[in-house]
């Protein structure tokens, strides 16, 4: 038998030595653990559909230089943080000094702060399941630590732009850690964009440590170009009566992968996970979510919609795990899919594992096409076929888009989706 391919040693050399000592030490330790790490293959269950799109060639192992300018495509009011190729760009950041809220680059942390962070990085993620997040832990060059003291409220959304730009191949490893104290509140918008045309990889990890009663809204927009492989992981650890709400909107690419893991560890915690994915051409998008109901009386509500056009491929894998002690859990998962062409493919898999006996757990998945009768109705009113197709396709996801809580983001997303579908139906 052929030995399973392992991660090239080229990936074990992190760049950027300006981090505080405890973080450098952590990184080194994580790197050592990656020696001989088997790469995902077709036979790796949670990479079954995506492993063939993953290109971890040696040229991808190079750290992209953090040089150049960055700019969000979102012209919206709020606080701003900009990353370029995984490194924070202080000159492009705009956020005030606020009472009880600290927003700092990893590079600016004191040894004490860094040591505390090093103890907690990766704590929200099941690293065995999120194999690629381990690579980020061995390679991050910078990062953002957001700490909210108890009761602290960030009064405006914080926009974090992650841009990659490169003239030659390589990777970026952005990292975010949010530590939300009791009853604190924050809305975080992460936008992933790219410029340049070299083949690059973005390998990113965002973690939320959510204390009792804290309320987090996370919006994630994947807007990178056709030259970018994106592998992202988000970990959420929720304590008593906390709330986490996530809205992800993803446009396809050669490889888009997002793992979202939420662990409801305190009684009465609740999460709401919404996701919209659109793919065209030969794009590939793979969302894997896991919700762990560990404590009793927790609620989770998950709604994902995929739309695949042309010969593209979308994957949704939603796992809900209700632990034995998690009585009175309430879990609801729903995944609807729309195929816009005969050549498109969508794979959806709900995975429920329930060990408690007094729970409510519902799930549903459908795959369909645009409704001919609805289309006829629209065109019979003089509406052009292309516009009618766009209206009906938008209708499939409007319910989710309308729930995006930041108006400026919502409108931008609507505009981009519209544009995307107008392109999709150009030939029609």
């Amino acid at each position, binding site marked *: 038998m052929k030995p399973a391919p392992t991660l090239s040693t080229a990936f074990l050399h992190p760049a950027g030595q300006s981090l505080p000592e405890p973080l450098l030490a952590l990184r080194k330790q994580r790197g050592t653990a990656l020696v001989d790490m088997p790469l995902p293959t077709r036979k790796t269950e949670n990479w079954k559909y995506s492993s063939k799109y993953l290109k971890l060639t040696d040229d991808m192992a190079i750290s992209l230089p953090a040089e150049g300018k960055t700019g969000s495509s979102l012209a919206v009011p709020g606080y701003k943080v900009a990353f370029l190729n995984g490194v924070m760009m202080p000159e492009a950041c705009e956020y005030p000094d606020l009472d009880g809220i600290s927003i700092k680059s990893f590079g600016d942390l004191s040894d004490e702060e860094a040591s505390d962070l090093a103890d907690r990085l990766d704590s929200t993620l099941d690293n065995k399941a999120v194999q690629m997040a381990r690579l980020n832990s061995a390679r991050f060059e910078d990062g953002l630590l957001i700490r909210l003291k108890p009761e602290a409220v960030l009064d405006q959304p914080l926009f974090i732009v992650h841009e990659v730009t490169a003239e030659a191949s390589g990777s970026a490893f952005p990292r975010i850690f949010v530590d939300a104290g009791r009853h604190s509140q924050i809305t975080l918008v992460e936008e992933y964009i790219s410029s340049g045309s070299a083949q690059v990889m973005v390998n990113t990890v965002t973690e939320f440590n959510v204390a009792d009663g804290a309320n987090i809204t996370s919006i994630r927009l994947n807007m990178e170009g056709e030259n970018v492989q994106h592998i992202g992981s988000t970990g959420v650890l929720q304590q008593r009566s906390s709330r986490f709400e996530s809205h992800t909107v993803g446009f396809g690419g050669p490889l888009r992968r997002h793992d979202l893991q939420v662990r409801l560890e305190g009684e009465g915690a609740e999460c709401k996970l919404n996701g919209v994915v659109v793919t065209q051409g030969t794009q590939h998008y793979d969302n894997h979510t896991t919700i762990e109901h560990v404590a009793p009386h927790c609620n989770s509500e998950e709604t994902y919609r995929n739309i695949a056009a042309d010969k593209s491929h979308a994957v949704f894998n939603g796992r809900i795990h209700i632990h034995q002690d998690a009585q009175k859990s309430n879990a609801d998962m729903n995944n609807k899919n729309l195929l816009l062409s005969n050549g498109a493919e969508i794979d959806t898999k709900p995975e429920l594992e329930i060990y408690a006996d007094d729970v409510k757990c519902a799930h549903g998945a459908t795959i369909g096409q645009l*409704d*001919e*009768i*609805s289309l*006829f*109705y*629209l*065109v*019979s*009113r*003089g*509406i*052009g*076929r292309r*516009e*009618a197709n766009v*209206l*009906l396709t*938008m*209708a*499939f*996801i*409007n*319910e989710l888009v309308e729930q995006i809580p930041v108006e400026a983001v919502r409108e931008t997303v609507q505009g981009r989706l519209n544009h995307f579908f107008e392109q999709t139906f150009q030939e029609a």
Partner: protein
Amino acid sequence: MLSIKNLHASVEGKEILKGINLEIKAGEVHAIMGPNGSGKSTLSQVLAGNDAFEVTEGEITLNGDNLLELETEERAREGIFLAFQYPVEIPGVSNLQFLRTAVNAMRQHKGQDEMNAAEFMKLAREVSKQVDLDPAFLKRGVNEGFSGGEKKRNEILQALLLQPKLAILDETDSGLDIDALKVVSDGVNALRAEDRAILMVTHYQRLLNHIVPDYVHVLAGGKIIKSKIIKSGGRELALELEERGYGWLGIKDEETADSSAN
């Protein structure tokens, strides 16, 4: 305005229309009555351009232009409007957005400027009142959760907004209580104009009490077997159909509704 000659049409290989001839002039209102399965809805759908139906023979012209060469949306822009027997629910597209898109498609076709959201909202509210539909319905998804009567009123609302040359009403009276029937009829009567024709397709005579047609035709077995001008016996024909059913004309009222048409 509309001229139908020897129209044959089939669905899934089964011939439904077997040689329809009909002339409708501007300003006229025609009623087509007939039993279930006679091809009434098929005729409506063929006129609107539903490509589930195949025209195998004959011709349809609108003001001299060959209608059969036009796509559904082109026919609509030329002034054909079909009020659906079963209006479609489209959650996720707001009624307002749908109506405005349609009105602007028409305006664009006529070389007029598009209406902006505020202008259109004003117009849509006015017309909503005319058909006794709460303007709150404009914000809901297209026909989403509307009752049968509300759906029919929404159809008439569209006709009033789009101002077609030929309005085809497919069983617009079905499922309406007497009050709703009155509202819908008032809406249709408001559409009557010298430069517009109306074709009503109905199983029952009662609609004709509210909207008095100029002609009554009886469609059976895919053909028009009887036509009367209302002034000389058309009304009596309709009443007789109501009282005696279709049997006396030697027609079997097929209980199998022409579901293929819906």
